[in-house]
């Protein structure tokens, strides 16, 4: 598999610059589906620009975490961005076991937001934080089952190698397993980023919010940081799904780079379409659904294990 570090850096730059555009694509698709014109594709950039020019008001009852949370979340995500193999090029920062580092950087960002939300003492934010923790505890299991599957299929603990290796030919059931695991990764992406069947990013009722309830007290640059990190997280998780589906030996790096970007925006269109045509699940249904996702991810893992000739010996 030919390597060209230039395309990795281009992919990193694309992630940092185009992440809000993905949100724009989702909103535009949603608007098209319901027959509206919708906001401009660049609207998320305008919003961020507006927020960064504003002053920042913080509640006086806070003892600190409220102010740190956005910074911690943004820095955790900016670190996590360094570990994905964009366009199937190995990341220069990769090390053995960075898959776990990646997963827990996302976890750290979430933890900072939760602590910040609890710090305000608002009951809505406490409720949102509680829900966020409950659902993310369930998705984390599924995420690690998927990582386990990738590690087993690629015989590597390195996120870059896991996602950029060609389809392992020694596993007969690999296509079924990859499709299953990528489907689960897509569901994890929807849950982690609060997209529609699990959470509604546009709800205006605090009682039904999950993620939005946690950021009610933020304003100005703080809110801008959080929104930008959310966009970055959406980009990262979509890229993860796309990378799982694109084997590394498919095409030369330049073509892969284009396929990578197209895949991510196609992912945005799919998310927008799902949001336009479906309603969110009942809260009571969610844990059961997430448990199902975990079970399916474990089946994908079992498919790989059985394919290698039976057994973990």
């Amino acid at each position, binding site marked *: 598999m030919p390597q060209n570090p230039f395309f990795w850096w281009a992919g990193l730059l694309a992630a940092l610059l185009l992440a809000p555009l993905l949100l724009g694509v989702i909103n535009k698709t949603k608007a098209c589906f319901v027959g509206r014109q919708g906001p401009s594709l660049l609207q998320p950039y305008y919003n961020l620009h507006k927020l960064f020019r504003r002053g920042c008001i913080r509640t006086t009852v806070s003892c600190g975490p409220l102010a740190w949370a956005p910074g911690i979340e943004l820095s955790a995500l900016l670190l996590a961005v360094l570990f994905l193999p964009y366009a199937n090029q190995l990341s220069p920062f990769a090390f053995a076991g960075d898959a776990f580092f990646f997963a827990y950087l996302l976890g750290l960002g979430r933890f900072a937001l939760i602590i910040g939300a609890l710090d305000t003492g608002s009951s809505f934010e406490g409720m949102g934080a509680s829900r966020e923790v409950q659902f993310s505890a369930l998705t984390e299991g599924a995420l690690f089952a998927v990582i386990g599957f990738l590690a087993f299929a690629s015989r590597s603990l390195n996120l870059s190698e896991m996602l950029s290796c060609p389809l392992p030919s020694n596993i*007969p*059931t690999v*296509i*079924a*397993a990859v*499709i*299953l695991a990528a489907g689960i990764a897509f569901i994890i992406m929807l849950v982690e980023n609060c997209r529609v069947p699990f959470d509604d990013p546009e709800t205006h009722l605090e009682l039904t919010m999950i993620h939005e309830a946690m950021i009610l007290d933020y304003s100005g640059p703080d809110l801008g940081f959080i929104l930008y990190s959310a966009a970055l997280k959406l980009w990262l998780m979509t890229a993860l799904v796309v990378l799982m589906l694109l084997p590394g030996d498919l095409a030369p790096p330049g073509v892969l780079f284009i396929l990578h970007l197209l895949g991510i925006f196609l992912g945005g269109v799919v998310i927008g379409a799902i949001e336009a045509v479906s309603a969110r699940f009942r809260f009571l249904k969610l*844990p*059961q*659904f997430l*448990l*199902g996702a975990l*079970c*399916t991810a*474990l*089946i994908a893992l*079992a*498919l790989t*294990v*059985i*394919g290698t000739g*039976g*057994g973990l010996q």
Partner: protein
Amino acid sequence: MNELLNLILGALLVLNLLLVSASRLRHCIKLVAIQGVLLGLLPLACAHPADGHTWQFLLVMFLSLIIKGGLLPYLLLYTTRRINVRRELEPVVGYSLSLLIILALTGGAFWLGSVVPTAVAHGASPLVLPAALSTISTGLFLMVTRRKAITQVMGFLIFENGVSIFGTGMMIHNGLLVELGLLLDIFALVFIMGIAVFNINRSFRHIDTHSLNALGD
């Protein structure tokens, strides 16, 4: 190794999870129909010896597609409509716990699949045995833990689908003949059960099988 076959078997494994977590009767019946269709497509994906029996495979495929994918689900739907059954299932074991139990049973099926040597020796896909055993146990589990008479029919149907997965996937010699016989049996059974459920409903005004425990002779 045959990719299409593995895809179908993987889908059947996931379908089992969906079946135990489905809470609405109609949804459950639709899932059984999908299972029937996948099962019907299974012979198409199997690599079978070129000995001029192709038409037999095609015949069984079409028959099971029509009967298991269309006719039986339609009969079940028709019965639910006729007897005005409550749309929600009333499980004895909760959905999340059911999922975990099925996961454990599937794990056991995978373990058995790796222990039993015939799978590899036969040249069949290593997934056939786990998928078949998992479907069989799902069927049995649904029969035990769902209280409506109609879900017990469904459980039996799923159980029989599991047996067919085993027969088709393992390419058992003369399996097709057995398959046809089974198909006839199951068709008759669902027909009779449909009538029985209808009669139970008429005498008791519900189809909760728990009340049948107290019957004396």
